[in-house]
């Protein structure tokens, strides 16, 4: 499976602000940002808190668990793929893809967890898969 997957794993563009996020993916960690001033978590990760503009933000390692906020399966292209908005247990809703699952059995509110795929060029890309999906 890994060979098949690797062919399809795109390499993200990385900038100085997002570099720690992508470095952590190589260790299987999904990071978001936490603000020490207003105590809010946020994503995409910013140096400056998007809610209170404080510069006192720190990286927070997530559980990688969450629920499907919404999704859409692109049927127009082969192979089909599923865009998903996942609300992490830590708060922020993020954009990803659902993989290793039956696209016809997805539902909003369903629990999902993160799974990483190797780009072959350093960073690993985080995807999500249903908690009870047949493996």
């Amino acid at each position, binding site marked *: 499976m890994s060979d098949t997957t690797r062919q399809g794993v795109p390499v993200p563009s990385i900038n100085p602000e997002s570099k720690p996020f992508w470095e952590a993916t190589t260790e299987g960690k999904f990071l978001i940002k936490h603000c020490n001033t207003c105590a809010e978590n946020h994503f995409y990760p910013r140096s400056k808190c998007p809610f209170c503009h404080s510069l006192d933000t720190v990286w927070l390692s997530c559980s990688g668990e969450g629920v499907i906020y919404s999704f859409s399966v692109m049927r127009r292209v082969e192979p*089909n793929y599923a865009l998903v908005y996942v609300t992490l247990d830590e708060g922020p*809703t993020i954009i990803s893809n659902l993989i290793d699952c039956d696209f016809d059995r997805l539902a909003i509110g369903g629990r999902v967890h993160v799974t990483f795929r190797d780009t072959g060029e350093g960073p690993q890309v985080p995807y999500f898969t249903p908690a009870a999906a047949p493996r």
Partner: protein
Amino acid sequence: MARNRTPRRGGGGTAPEAGFESIYGLTTANMYGAAAMRHMYEYGTTSEQLAWIKVAASHHAQYNEHALLRKVVTVEDVLESPMISDPLHRLDCCVITDGGGGLVIVSPEIARSLDRDCAKVLGQGEAVKHLHGGKVDLTYTGACWSGPTAFAEAGITPSDIKYASIYDSFTITVLETLEDLGFCDKGKGGEFVADGNLISGQGSLPFNTDGGGLCSNHPGNRGGMTKILEAVRQVRGEAHPAVQVADCDLVLAHGTGGSLGTRMGSATLILGREDA
């Protein structure tokens, strides 16, 4: 069903978000699909209700000789068209065409010297919406801010509007915009658009009487321009006789840019007759 595959979409872009977005195969269709999916989940909106928006547009497009799609379609036609990205069918999506437009905007002094009816700008509002640091809500648009601003400046309410041009990249775009502008309560857009309520001569709010983006044209990223053009035709009484709204003294045009799924801009314009 496809399994164990990830979308082959890579790429850069210079936006700070690019690294977190371009790798996941975001397209306009699947982001708006996700918006529709969430709206259905929260408010019980149905594909049949969304289809009515396309049906209304097609009723109007039959009279527009320049419309790309002039065939009148039914709710069933929409639901039976191929699925593009759940839950949006092909006929929930706008056309993509060439095209363009322009406006001549003049001072009141110049307007008085012209020998044809002018539309008067009564109010306008603009707003942006984004992912808000992860506090994502796909069920509303920036129209919830641009609309009230425009109505306040014009000194009127949504019930005063006789005709509305609503940017219509997808049926869901129209539905959320109508709610956000206050033509109906939040979450009631499905009921509002059903049963021909947007069809000129039948419903309470005739919309996109040129056929809109769903049937007539959608020139690149300039879909908003054509919305203003038809609103001006309506307030001048120059729309096609079959779709001209009677006593059309107050009209609205609304444009949407960017994407409901990430970052968007909203612009609302309220026009009236010269004596308004």
